[in-house]
């Protein structure tokens, strides 16, 4: 089904309470971290039997910095007829968290959350409370740091051969708080120069 929705607007997600416009038929909701576990339990009871994906996004320097993103699918089966299957429903749950926050695991509700939570721990450094096996999953076990964080150096800590400016997020620049010290005007100037204008 082609999407009739407008694509997400850059910078919108900087505000933790704001939601990106949906790009598919999924409904999106944002929950507080304190309510996350309760909400997940409710969703499971409501028939969201499938956790399609679980990921995280680093919105540095936003406060709180990270977003957890849960993708759910509900496949209600109409009991009266085998051929008739109810319309599937998709739900995306966002939850803003900070470094070091206590996040409750979802492994006991959806088993496939196991590796997904380990991946988030590995790459973003967010730890899940109650996870049966909170280890790294992709990087070597003795790895230092969490590579998908925005402030992680591309070549790894201590391996930068040439200094690079820290990440310049488009949304930061729009918000007027560039970590690089470059303003929106300076960036536009740079683009113009590159285009030879």
């Amino acid at each position: 089904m082609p999407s009739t929705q407008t694509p997400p607007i850059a910078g919108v997600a900087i505000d933790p309470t704001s939601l990106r416009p949906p790009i598919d038929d999924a409904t999106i909701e944002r929950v507080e971290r304190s309510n996350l576990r309760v909400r997940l339990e409710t969703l499971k009871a409501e028939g969201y039997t499938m956790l399609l994906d679980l990921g995280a996004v680093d919105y540095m320097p936003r406060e709180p910095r990270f977003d957890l993103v849960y993708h759910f699918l509900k496949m209600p089966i109409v009991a009266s007829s085998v051929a008739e299957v109810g319309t599937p429903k998709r739900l995306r749950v966002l939850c803003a968290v900070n470094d070091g926050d206590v996040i409750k695991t979802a492994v006991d509700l959806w088993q496939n959350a196991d590796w997904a939570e380990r991946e988030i721990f590995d790459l973003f450094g967010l730890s899940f409370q109650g996870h049966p096996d909170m280890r790294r999953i992709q990087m070597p076990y003795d790895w230092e740091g969490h590579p998908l964080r925005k402030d992680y150096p591309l070549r790894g800590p201590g391996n930068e051969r040439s200094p690079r400016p820290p990440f310049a997020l488009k949304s930061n620049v729009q918000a007027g708080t560039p970590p690089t010290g470059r303003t929106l005007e300076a960036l536009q100037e740079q683009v113009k120069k590159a285009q030879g204008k």
Partner: protein
Amino acid sequence: MLARLDDVARWAQSSSVWPLTMGLACCAIEMMTVTSAEYDIARLGSEVFRSSPRQADLMIVSGRVAQKMAPVVKRLFDQMADPKWVISMGACASSGGVFDNYAIVQGVDTIIPVDVYVPGCPPTPDGLLYAVNLIQQQIREGGRGGILARA
């Protein structure tokens, strides 16, 4: 028929360079192609890809080596019986290629000695065949190390 025993041994050795079954990334696809009827690495006596490093003479590092994979590659190399040879196949294995980042080893020669480097991304099967040819040449001449397989 007169020949030095050394030469006979080298001739036998160079005519049966058995590679290790080890595909790391997309270069492995080209490596597999080399065994097909079109390229037919059997002409060089190297069609027997051994699944055990104990029986392999040649390690073809076919693709990018992740930091996590590096100890495994090193271990496989150590498990291969001497004499052994290494082909670094493609840009990633030789220098990290486009993956100039924390996850990828910047050249497999930082962990194991390389005999022939094959340029390309990925190299053509002909390129790999030529590299095996160079290995054979090295074996016959008794030399080692650091050759760039450039046509």
